[in-house]
Every structure is written in C-alpha cells, then in structure tokens.
C-alpha cells in the first residue's frame, strides 16, 4: 500500500492541540499538587499566589471547593478533567497516527478522572496514574509516531503550552529561555508552519531579559506573541 506522508491541515491542528492540552494536564496537576501541599498546614498567603493563577476566574471559595473544582469541574475550562477531555477530543481523531496503544493512556486517564469525580474523591494522590499515563503517553507517541512531521507538530504544541504555563506561573527568565530554546528545536523542523516575523520579535524579547519593560507587560507581550508563533 502506498502510504501518504502528507499531514492535512485538519490533522495538524489536532496534533498541535493534543500536544498543548496534554501538556496542560501535566502542568496543572503539578501546580495543583504544589498548592494542595501548602494547603495541608500552611497559611493562606503561602498558597494564594498559585491558587489565583490556577483559578483565574475566581470560581471557588473554600479549599475543598477549589481542589475538587480544579480536578473535575467540567464547566471550568482550566480543570484537569476539562483539559484531559480536550486532549482526548483531539486524540480520538488521530488514532491511526498515534496508534491505539498510545491513545489508550488518554482513554484511561479520562475514565479514571470520571470515576474519581463520581466518587467525589478528594485525595489528590488518587490522580497519580494520570501523571504516570501522561508521561507514558509521550513516550509511546515518540516510539510509535512513524511520521516525524506529525511528532514535531505535536511537540510544538507541547512546548508552546509549556512555555505559556511557565510564563503564567512566573518562572524565572532562565527557565523561560530554556523552554523557548526547546520549542525552537521543533519549530525549525517545520519552517513552513512558522511566522518568521513573530519569531524574530520573540527572539528579541528573550534576549532583552525584560530589563526595559515591566514584568506584566513583558509577560503579556510574550504570551500574545507565543500564541501567534505557528500558523496552526
């Protein structure tokens, strides 16, 4: 059978967003776990900064509401279940690219999250398999995606999301610059999908180390450019 190596616009879009949402699941879990740790015996001021960054819409009042909502609230687009479902919505359209084995990790994560939600499971530790499966997913994808361009597009999504999250959570410049480097590794493989003009603006911003502009402005500017970097 003559195999096509062509990736349609439709599939490229799914690959990119699968990468983004799956990375969002992972980082949200990481941040939420940090926040939950501080909530065990900490003062409000200890965990409020992360809380506010996770719950940008100010949906929740109590610690309990916050934890459960961030895990399972399907009406909150920032919740883990929402992000995992979105990742799944893209992945389901890519079965023949990523293979059933790879897709299976996401299926299991969605099923586990729903099961925990139905049991009103509050212990964050029950979601550990979602973290494990997320990493297994990336490993499987790298092993099984025979079409390298498809893998690059997915990794572009993953790295855009990573950088986006690092910016939102105020990581230091060094980490941001590393993440940007990592993103560029993949983007360079797919020159046709790159907005070169945006790339050079981002290059300048990273090089300028935010000395000239206030942090918020710098951050928002980076975020807005980042989201225009690819043509997907």
């Amino acid at each position, binding site marked *: 059978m003559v195999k096509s190596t062509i990736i349609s616009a439709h599939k490229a879009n799914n690959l990119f967003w699968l990468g983004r949402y799956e990375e969002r699941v992972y980082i949200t879990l990481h941040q939420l776990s940090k926040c939950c740790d501080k909530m065990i015996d900490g003062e409000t001021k200890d965990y409020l900064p992360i809380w506010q960054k996770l719950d940008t819409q100010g949906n929740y009042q109590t610690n309990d509401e916050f934890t459960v909502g961030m895990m399972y609230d399907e009406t909150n687009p920032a919740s883990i279940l929402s992000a995992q479902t979105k990742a799944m919505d893209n992945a*389901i359209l890519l079965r023949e690219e990523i293979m059933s084995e790879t897709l299976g990790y996401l299926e299991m994560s969605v099923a586990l999250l729903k099961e925990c939600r139905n049991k009103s499971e509050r212990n964050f530790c029950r979601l550990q398999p979602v973290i494990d499966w997320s990493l297994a997913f990336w490993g499987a994808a790298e092993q099984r995606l025979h079409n390298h361009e498809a893998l690059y597009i997915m990794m572009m999504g993953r790295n855009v999301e990573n950088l986006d999250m690092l910016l939102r959570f105020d990581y230091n410049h060094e980490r941001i610059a590393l993440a940007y480097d990592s993103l560029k590794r993949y983007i360079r493989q797919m020159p046709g999908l790159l907005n070169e003009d945006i790339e050079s603006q981002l290059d300048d911003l990273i090089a300028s180390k935010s000395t000239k502009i206030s942090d918020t402005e710098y951050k928002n500017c980076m975020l807005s450019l980042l989201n225009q970097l690819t043509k997907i």
Partner: protein
Amino acid sequence: MSIKIKELTESRNTVNKWMERYGVRFGVYKNGVFNEQLFPFDPVPRIIWKDDWDYLEQGLRQRVKALNRFLWDIYHDKEIITDGIVPEEFVYSSKGYLPECEQISPTGGVYAHIAGIDLVEGKDGQWYVLEDNLRIPSGASYPMIAREITRRVSPSTFTTHAVAENRDYADLLRDMMDEMNDNRGISVILTPGRYNSAYFEHSYLAEKTGATLVYPGELFVEDNIVYYTGINKERTRVGCIYRRVSDEYMDPMIFEASSLLGIPNVMQAYKAGNVALVNAPGNGVADDKGIYYFVPKMVEYYLDEKPILQNAPTYLPYFKEDYDFVLKNIRRLVVKDVSEAGGYGVVFGKDLQEDELEKLKSLIIEQPRRWIAQEVIDFKDLEILEGNEFVERKADLRAFVISGKETKVWRSGLTRFSRNPDSFVVNSSQGGGFKDTWVVKN
C-alpha cells in the same frame, strides 16, 4: 469435543477494562444528541467448527460472486432482466439502483468489495441468509479487537483450542485495496467524521491497514484526478477510496446537492477509471429486500451452480402463487416493506390485532410489489453471560466476504445478540452486544 472458556469468562472484567482502554465504542443518537457508549462484549464466543465453516465459506463465496456478477449485469447488459429471471420493476424501482452508474466498469468487475452477509442458524442446524449488506457493512473491527484483547488476557484458552486467526482482516482489506488501486495513488478511508456511529471502526481499520483516514473536504478532484492535500499545500494522488459515506452523499454534483460529506465530481473521476471506490456506488440495488428473493436464482443463472446457502423461505406477493399464499398465511409470516421510505418496516403477523391484519392485507392487495413475506425462522439461541448466570439469547452472524482479484471469506465474523430475552432484534443500536466468532478445528 468441548471448548473450555472458564478462564475467559472469569477474566471478563479485565477484558472489559481493555475494551475501555482501547475505546471500543459505537455512537448512538438519542433525541438528536450524540452519545458514545462501550459496545457490550460477551466473553462466550460463538463456536463454528471447521467442517461447518468450510460449508459456510463455500456458500458465502458463491453467493457474493453471484451478487457481483449481478451488479455488473445490471449496470451493463441486463441479461438477467431480458432472460426473465428478475422482473425489471424490481430493479429499477429499487432505491439503490443508480442510473448514474450505468456503463461504469469498476476494476476486476468488483462492486461489493466488502460484503457483510447476515446469517442465522436454525434450530435444525441449517444456516439461513437473512440479508446481504453490500453498501457499507460495518462491524468487523469489533471481533478483531476482541481477539487481540482476549488472547492477551487468557492466552491458555488459545493454546488449548485451535482458533483460526481473525486479526488478518486488515491484511485482507489492504490487499484488496492494493488490487483495486490501478493508479498507485495512496489508499484512504473516507469517514463522515467522529460523530458517525461507526467512527471507532473507521479509525481502527485505518490504523491496522495503514490507509490514511480522511474527512469530508480533504479530498478534491482536479483534471479528473482525486487528490489529498497537506498543510503546506502539497498534494498527493489518491488511488483507492474505501468510503464509509453513503452513495447519495458521495458526489454533490450529481447526487444530493446539499451534501458536505462528498467529493465534487468524484463520480466522473471514478467513471474515467482514475480512482477506485470501495464499495462501488449503486450496490443498493443488489441488497434490496425485494431483490433478496432472487439471489439463489442469480447463483444458478450466473454460475450455473446449485446455491449452497439458503434464504429464509420468502414469498413475493408480486407473483400470483405467492400472493395467494401470503394472504392466506399472513398470521404466521413476517412481512417486510420493500419501499424503504414507506416506513412500515418489519411486522410479525402474529403480533397484529385483527383490524391491523386486515389493513396490512389491503395494503398488500393494493401494491403487491411493495412487500415481501418470510417464514419466521426458529433460530438457535446462544449462551451469554449475564451477571454470573448463563442465559440464552437470540443471535445472528455477520460474515465478511472480501472481493479483490479473488473472493475471500474472513474466518470469523460479528456475532450480535439481543439482550432482551423476548427480542428477535439483534441491532447494536438497540442495546444488543457482540461476541467474537471462533472458527475451531475439530
């Protein structure tokens, strides 16, 4: 000889977990809302002994060969009509007959590349064909993946019993597509999209055959050649389309004009021999309820052989003798409306009140051509595991026959059962489940 499946039934929960992991689902529309659910799997396989299977295989091959010959004839010389075997009104008034397919000659004369033949086994041990599905039969992916999982979960079961491999369905499909693909373009599976009830199957078969899964709007015709395009506007030629979109939506330029699922002018490219369509458009004329009656006659007419497989005893009120018989015995028969748009559906005479029966009779008298009547077959029940109990339920078998250069029968099939003990309907959209089908050496 008996089959030991204890280990398999005991690992039922593990099997179901794997089914969930692989997303073995089908979609259902309820009140206009799309819902995906797991397709309930029953671990007790349907066993068909090799000897019985050999007989079925021969019969299926013969039947599908005749059906392909019939389709060629109908869209070319129409000898079977001229020779008075099939009356022309049964052909031309069938909704599945497409004048747009006249004189088109698909590669190798194959129309029904993938045929799904629905059979039941009677209590007398006799197999009967209930229906031929020659348009876009679905279901093969389910036993395929079930086998993948059950072998993993209960390896010893398959060490003990010599069960014929069924994961080779993808190879059968791939080889057939390659044989049809005269132009060496890429092979694709065209799906209507994720909200189609069989979307799982479309994507799974794409994965297993290596064909590209394509969505409406991703294929286009230029200079009478079909292309697939990528994100950088690069294009590649398409040689074979295994399409899971129905005939009427395939080409908005000559069929349903509002269709967004189809490929404009694909029928012209197909007519010119520039692309293979699997299955061929226009097949509906051969799996029409009214034409079903004539299939055994086709076997004799085209192949000069005695039909190996039997139809359920069927009467056509169109013929005087059958007309009298049907009116007299209607109470014990099942009556089917051939004009699909009519919506009368399938009616069991025994379920009708006196006045309803009279009404049905008057409809038959008015338009005899519109109806067929069949004997109700007392078919064999199969065991299923419900809770911790084994109970008996109605089940049918969809066998898959793949026709490329040769006609091959897949050594397995989709066994569907009804969960409702009183129901004869084994439709998956009505809450039924499925079983794997094992062909086992005696």
